[in-house]
């Protein structure tokens, strides 16, 4: 069960060949996927051999096989973690019952919606990152970008398999829709707003993989608890791949900060102008990028009070982060949780039923995790002896979803007037000038072992290869 059959047209470990109808349906979807990849996948990369990680099985020995392959030949497919016999539902109203191998009729619409929303983010990332290969700061980073790209593509496969196998004609139509929407397209955009934002430069890409892929981790963790067993199993395997994406972001920003700190010490200055003249990204700009990406990403968790969230939890579709490790009744009826709202020009907390606040619970778990990563970046600054710390902005800052969407809040959590917001927004969020400056640094640097001036080399190479390893062969 654990190893993946690569001799089939669609590599899988789900015995796809035993279900001819499903196999044919997926085989019809496949050329559309490839043509989508050709249209909006990584630009100008078709002939490169990239040092990619490919899974040959879903157990520890097999899922990280490294070798040079052309991205178009990457074995996208359907891989589920091994199932547990007699797994039971461990939260919500169905607690203690047997996990579902098929979709119960009453939850069909909600499950489909959850899967489609998750699935829609995967090709969106690839579209958002389409042009970044042309401005990679090193061959090592280029390889990491491509690894992220192919795995996002495979995550799309994971969701499409569920749609085809369990949702009949509706599922097939939804799967087609996943290849028809386009990130940022005014007529047919991706479902979630953050996935329609541009990722124009590598600082944005690192922020995206740090913040937004971490959102992916939390969403996938919540789905990995699902009573719908095929969803739980496929998302568990996706999580192992997602980890690399977060690594790209966390180490990427860390290296940007390290390089900036190095220049600050070298030039003995924190003057933005001088640092920009030296070709590195000043800390205030990095802070503004953090503010932007953090706030856009926490919107992805949805409204702070949501009856859908309550339904999803109680009906067993979507658990909490680390549901199995929590010590409460896993039903959550009669419990409350604090959410923030703006009242009389102040942010105040109010108690709401816990079940309705589950989006907020997941958001808060995410925030805690994001903050500790930012603290690790601060250690880079501490180590360099620079007395500045980066931080994530207040949870109410720059929100466009839920109770806080109508209020203007500063990064430190003060409700501000429209006028103050307008006067200060360029200090809080990346200005056009910031973005233009960062864009001006983006030039391709892909000689093995060479790195663009604005970023430090990584501590170690991928799969313990040397940093100057031939990660991408341009042929």
């Amino acid at each position, binding site marked *: 069960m*654990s*190893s993946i059959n*690569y*001799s089939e047209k669609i590599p899988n470990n789900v015995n796809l060949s035993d279900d001819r109808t499903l196999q044919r349906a997926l085989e019809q979807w496949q050329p559309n996927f490839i043509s989508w990849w050709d249209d909006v996948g990584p630009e100008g990369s078709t002939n490169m*051999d990239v040092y990619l990680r490919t899974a*040959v*099985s879903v*157990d*520890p*020995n*097999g*899922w*990280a*096989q490294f*070798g*040079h*392959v*052309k991205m178009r030949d990457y074995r996208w497919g359907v891989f589920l973690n091994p199932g547990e016999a007699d797994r039971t539902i461990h939260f919500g109203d169905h607690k203690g019952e047997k996990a579902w191998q098929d979709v119960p009729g009453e939850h069909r619409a909600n499950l489909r919606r959850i899967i489609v929303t998750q699935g829609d983010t995967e090709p969106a990332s690839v579209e958002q990152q389409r042009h970044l290969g042309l401005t990679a700061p090193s061959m090592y980073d280029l390889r990491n970008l491509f690894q992220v790209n192919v795995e996002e593509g495979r995550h799309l496969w994971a969701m499409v398999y569920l749609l085809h196998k369990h949702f009949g004609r509706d599922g097939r139509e939804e799967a087609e829709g996943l290849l028809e929407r386009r990130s940022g397209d005014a007529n047919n955009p991706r479902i979630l707003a953050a996935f329609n934002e541009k990722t124009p430069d590598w600082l944005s890409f690192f922020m995206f993989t740090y913040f937004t892929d971490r959102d992916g*981790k939390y969403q996938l963790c919540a789905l990995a608890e699902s009573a719908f067993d095929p969803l739980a199993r496929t998302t*568990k395997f996706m*999580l*192992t791949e*997602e*980890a*690399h994406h*977060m*690594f790209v972001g*966390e*180490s990427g920003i860390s290296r940007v900060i390290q390089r900036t700190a190095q220049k600050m010490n070298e030039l003995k200055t924190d003057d933005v102008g001088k640092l920009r003249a030296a070709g590195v990204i000043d800390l205030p700009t990095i802070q503004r990028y953090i503010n932007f990406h953090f706030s856009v990403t926490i919107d992805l968790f949805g409204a702070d009070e949501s009856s859908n969230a309550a339904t999803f939890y109680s009906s067993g579709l979507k658990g909490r982060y680390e549901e199995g490790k929590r010590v409460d009744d896993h039903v959550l009826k009669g419990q409350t949780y604090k959410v923030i709202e703006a009242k009389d020009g102040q942010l105040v907390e109010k108690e709401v039923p816990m079940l309705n606040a589950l989006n907020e619970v997941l958001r808060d778990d995410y925030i*805690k*995790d994001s903050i*500790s*990563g930012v603290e*690790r970046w601060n*250690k880079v600054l501490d180590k360099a002896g620079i007395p500045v710390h980066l931080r994530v902005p207040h949870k109410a800052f720059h929100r466009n979803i839920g109770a806080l969407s109508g209020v203007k809040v500063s990064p430190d959590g003060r409700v501000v007037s429209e006028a103050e917001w307008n006067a200060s927004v360029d200090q809080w969020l990346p200005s056009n000038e910031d973005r233009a400056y960062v864009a001006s640094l983006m030039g391709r640097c892909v000689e093995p072992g060479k790195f663009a001036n604005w970023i430090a080399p990584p*501590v*170690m190479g991928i*799969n*313990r290869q*040397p940093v100057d390893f*031939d990660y991408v*062969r341009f*042929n």
Partner: protein
Amino acid sequence: MDMTEIHVIKQHLIDPEICIRCNTCEAICPVSAITHDSRNYVVDAEKCNFCMACISPCPTGSIDNWRTMPRVKAYSLDAQLGWDELPPELTPEELAAEGVAAGAVPDIEPVSPSLPAASNGEAVFNSAQYGATLPPWSAAHAYVNLYGPKTAEKSVTATVTGNVRVTEVGSDDYDTHHIVLDFGKMPFPVLEGQSIGIIPPGVDASGRPHFARQYSIASPRNGERPGYNNLSLTIKRVLEDHQGRPVRGVGSNYMCDLRVGDTVQVMGPFGTSFLMPNHPRSNIVMICTGTGSAPMRAMTEWRRRLRKSGKFEEGKLMLFFGARTQEELPYFGPLQNLPKDFIDINFAFSRTPGAPKRYVQDVMRERAADLALLLQDANTCFYVCGLKSMEEGVVLALRDVAQQAGLNWDAVGAALKTEGRLHLETY
């Protein structure tokens, strides 16, 4: 206390400066040895059994840190949870102060060493008339017959950790596989050019256990994955016998159909002659067809790794590689990507539509000028591996090259044989 009784471990630790707290290691650890708090991910020295399951899934490399420690002084979970960075390795003096003798060996080594150190000298190698029976003078010593009918252990169990197809086209049957076998903690030291025996399970038509099939090793001495106790093979399905009658090869089909996680019984290693030179500025000329490329891949990769590490001065690599078509040639893609100043690659395709048939000896003749220089250089070794039918053509081509260059083939041919510089392994 007797110094030798101090139990030493290689303690498994995670570097908190690199770890991104993605939870992959904790999720994947089969013995729940990994845990975390809001600050760090840590490994419980009491529970970790060195299974290495967490190593490759870690996206950061932070998981792969080891410290020699007296077992009783192993870093506790609490200590590790408080770290901002990894503590340095204890110095020999600090270890001595804890009662650990210099050079003390851990009770369990996390990674199996793979480099051979000495030879037992026993060899079985079939060579044709022109082939040498001795290895080049600078070859490393090879271990042979560690497992076989005449040894205490008749075979050793290896686990399949990879099985991928390496040819581009053809029906599902007409394929060549790259198979990785892992020997876990069992000794199986090998060198490039050696082979191993695989015993297919079950019995033949007359009810006897199958005899072993021999396959050349396709990976270098330190493993398909450097530093791991594994090796790779290049195996093509046998679908017809030498007379062209359809027959499914027992060994090759068994091997090609293996899945990751399956185990196989292995004998060997075999071969003490088809070994590569190791002295600086030694040249290697490799001539092969099909899966005869396996030992060539091994040698090329070893030279490539040496070159990367700066441990090899110079020395030419020249490859003549024949196949029916480009698509049937194993490792075509990876070969194309080797730097031109590292290896001189010459392909010969005999069935490319619309193009005349070309065999390796044809291409060798085209490269006569370069080959003549190499033939005259005593630092050059020649290796031929592949179909039996190529052997004569190749040796004749070498003779012609020598004669055209005004060399005395009788002298040159004899020297190649007696100096262990021409190796033939055909089947």
